[in-house]
């Protein structure tokens, strides 16, 4: 070589670049090294796992419960449960990073082949990979998820991904009632008093009810399950409501699963200043309403799940006035009745000047609504119902009107009328109802909006529908959507880009 100096210089530069590359990549590798950490919880040895599905999280098997669901679309009124079937459900904690999920359909699954799978909320855009009888995908945040197979609602996989628990209650505190992992029966129920905390550990299945009356500063926490499987259907007589607060204040309920209630599931009556966080409900039996708030004030239910065989979220006046209710970031599946209902009972307590006001349903996804209206106010008494809002609602499947719902199949239904649930003889009014950013992705019917006042004096006044999209089509004016309107004034439909 004529100019070895240049060769040496070139090699020196390359060596320097390689050294720099090594240092740079080492630093990046250390800084961004991926960690996926999960905590799996075994189930009681007395509980049989799902026969139709297995779950592997980060390559390790996680227990899959077999829970009752009800694809029947008719309440025959005789507490018939012949349509009840089973579906898989599992939960775990996502501690760090992303969890790699692998659902395997067993040979006992009713699906002869696995062609597709969709993870709800669809808005999260979770891609699935199908291989043989395995569904693989990644979860990057705690939340509630439902996996539907081959476009069917059958044997949907319910997956509850929790954040790690923080600030655990002190097990040795006499005011902490601590339930360890295992299957437990407490048939007489747990009556909580002021200042007490009930902690239900992950891996616990407790056959009991939890209630409080005239109490304050009460907590129910944990990742375990309250299960009503030891009781027959309530049949109008013996309702064993899993969680029931009456005349309470300063309530915190977090993390638990409510399963297979023999009646309605989470009930609060005349209760105020409450936060219900990450509570999951699955019901399959008659009158299995999800979260029922009766005459409550300053009450928030958020980041939870309800798959129910009756109304999923419902607000009523059973005593004094309702005010300040927030349902936020919920995943719903309504097998029967309404998804988000105000009513029918708006003055069951027969109070003078009854009012039900300031209810907000926000950031809610309805995976399936199979029966009656998705968003509804049924003012069946004489109350003033006002300032009710629905914001950022996605209805993934509005397959309404099945079974005995018949023509009560509206997407939105605001009605003032007497009904079998009425207490007062006179009728009320509905004022200021707003719908904003409502998206319906699919459904079998042409979704209808019904605004049905009772008469000129008992009418609906002030309904605003903004940015409603049905099957991809923006609804810019009233004529763009199927409606049935009577005794309703100041109804506006608009679109803001």
């Amino acid at each position: 070589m004529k100019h070895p100096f240049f060769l040496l210089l070139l090699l020196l530069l390359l060596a320097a670049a390689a050294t720099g590359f090594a240092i740079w990549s080492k630093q990046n590798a250390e800084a961004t090294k991926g960690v996926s950490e999960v905590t799996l919880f075994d189930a009681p040895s007395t509980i049989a796992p799902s026969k139709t599905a297995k779950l592997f999280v980060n390559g390790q098997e996680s227990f899959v419960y077999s829970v009752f669901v009800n694809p029947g679309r008719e309440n025959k009124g005789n507490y018939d449960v012949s349509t009840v079937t089973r579906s898989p459900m599992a939960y775990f904690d996502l501690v760090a990073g992303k969890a790699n999920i692998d659902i395997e359909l067993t040979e006992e699954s009713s699906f002869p082949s696995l062609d597709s799978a969709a993870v709800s909320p669809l808005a999260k855009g979770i891609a699935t990979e199908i291989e043989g009888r395995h569904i693989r995908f990644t979860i990057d945040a705690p939340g509630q998820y439902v996996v539907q197979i081959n476009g069917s609602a059958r044997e949907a996989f319910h997956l509850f991904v929790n954040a790690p628990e923080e600030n655990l209650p002190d097990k040795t505190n006499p005011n902490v009632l601590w339930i360890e992992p295992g299957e437990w029966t407490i048939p007489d129920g747990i009556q909580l008093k002021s200042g007490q905390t009930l902690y239900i550990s992950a891996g616990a299945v407790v056959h009991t009810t939890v209630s409080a009356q005239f109490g304050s500063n009460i907590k129910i926490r944990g990742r375990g399950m309250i299960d009503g499987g030891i009781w027959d259907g309530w049949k109008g007589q013996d309702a064993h409501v899993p969680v029931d607060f009456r005349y309470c204040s300063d309530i915190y309920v977090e993390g638990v699963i409510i399963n297979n209630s023999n009646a309605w599931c989470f009930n609060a009556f005349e209760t105020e200043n409450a936060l219900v966080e990450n509570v999951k409900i699955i019901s399959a039996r008659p009158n299995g309403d999800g979260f029922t708030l009766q005459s409550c004030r300053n009450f928030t239910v958020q980041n939870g799940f309800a798959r129910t065989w009756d109304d999923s979220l419902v607000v009523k006046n059973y005593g004094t006035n309702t005010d300040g209710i927030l349902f936020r970031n919920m995943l719903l599946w309504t097998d029967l009745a309404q998804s988000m209902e105000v009513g029918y009972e708006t003055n069951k307590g027969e109070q003078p000047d009854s009012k039900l006001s300031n209810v907000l349903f926000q950031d809610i996804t309805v995976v399936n609504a199979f029966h009656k209206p998705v968003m509804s106010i049924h003012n069946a008494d004489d109350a003033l119902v006002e300032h009710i809002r629905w914001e950022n609602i996605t209805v993934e499947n509005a397959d309404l009107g099945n079974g005995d719902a018949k023509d009560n199949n509206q997407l939105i239904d605001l009605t003032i009328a007497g009904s079998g649930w009425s207490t007062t003889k006179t009728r009320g009014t509905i004022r200021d109802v707003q719908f904003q950013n409502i998206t319906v992705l699919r459904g079998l019917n042409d979704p209808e909006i019904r605004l049905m006042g009772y008469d000129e004096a008992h009418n609906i006044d002030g309904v605003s529908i903004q940015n409603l999209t049905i099957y991809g089509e923006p609804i810019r004016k009233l004529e763009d959507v199927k409606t049935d309107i009577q005794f309703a004034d100041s109804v506006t439909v608009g679109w803001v880009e």
Partner: protein
Amino acid sequence: MKLYQKIICGVLILAIAAGSGVGIYYMQRWNHVEEVVNRVTVPPQTTAETPERFVPEEMLAFVPPEGNNLAKGAKLTESGHTDVYFGNKAIDGRDTTYWEGNGFPATLTIDFGAELTFTKIALRLPPLRAWSARTQTVTIEISMDGENFSPLLSEQSLPFDPMTGNAVLLTVDAAQAAVVRVTFLANSGAGGGQVSEIMFFA
């Protein structure tokens, strides 16, 4: 090229190879996700148990007085009820179903259909541990015609405790009446009067 130049070249080439290799190694590490799985186990069981803390204390049962319950077959009217807790549940013969009134005052009126005499009245609530102890304030009146009532029991606070049967047995002088009206004025455990069974004995 001289020998020392060849040696320097060799060293630099080794440095390039080593640097590139280390860089590629860490690039691979960069994409690697370490999977950590914690598992919480559950002690084995053969059957569902009751946690020690929740093993119930012994509850005393309410024992009704001997004789027939005169309210059986009577007609009951209520001033109102809440939810599904209808008035007729107070005389349906089941101690776990109950009437709950809708605010105060609330009344239950029992029409025997004929004049009769009683000396004991039992007011019961469901004998279930889930019921907290409570006090109800009541008055009791009697009537021959269902319209004109006279006092039998003046305002009185009655203690109900599930651990002792969740019932109150009142003894009165022999009372003759065709109709009895019980008025509930307060209840420390609910927003209305509550009765699972109201019973009368001679």
